[in-house]
């Protein structure tokens, strides 16, 4: 049943992250990429819904210079790992 949620927009320019968090359930995972990585700056692992994992695309976190501002509890992933996640979860949802 588990879903992979993808977010590519910054918190200031979309309400995708709060809507996605509200619609995530235990076993789901969230990937922040492109400007979506900015959503991780204000986020702590404790504020995620229970049982929901969050990953951040390392390329984009570095491109936006925010890799050092992110809770180290969140894993940085690359495209190979993104592919693995897409395959591992039953469906992916891109929130716009």
């Amino acid at each position, binding site marked *: 049943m588990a879903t992979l949620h993808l977010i590519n927009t910054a918190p200031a320019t979309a309400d995708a992250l709060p809507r996605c968090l509200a619609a995530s359930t235990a076993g789901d995972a969230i990937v922040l990429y492109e400007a979506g990585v900015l959503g991780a700056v204000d986020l702590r692992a404790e504020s995620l819904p229970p049982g929901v994992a969050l990953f951040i695309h390392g390329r984009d976190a570095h491109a936006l210079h925010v890799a050092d501002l992110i809770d180290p509890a969140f894993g940085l992933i690359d495209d190979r790992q993104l592919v693995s996640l897409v395959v591992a979860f039953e469906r*992916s949802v*891109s929130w716009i």
Partner: protein
Amino acid sequence: MNLAVLVYGSPASSRAHISALGFVRAALEGGHRITRVFFYHDAVTIGSNLIVTPQDETDVGGAWVDVAREHGVELCLCIAAALRRGVINGEEAQRYERGAANLREPFEIVGLGQLAAAIIESDRVVTFP
């Protein structure tokens, strides 16, 4: 696994194509199957052969062409979206009496039915908005 990839964003004012290219390359290298990439909305403008990329910038359309040539991936522009944004092949140029066509090969213009078929036949769908 059989993946369907959709790209929505403008090549010049979003990172959608960069993100999708990275994903598609990694998926193909990982042994997954991507038969077609679908470009919809503003993403279809990537299929124009009249784009002139400055020398210090990446030719994103060329990167897609490389992926298509190396891995046999079809690059599909949805027809209604392409016509609305001025990307046209020879056949449509004739039908709509335009003096020229500007489709960059091997990009091709297809109907939405191909998008439907790809979604239906795939194991996973990933969209880059």
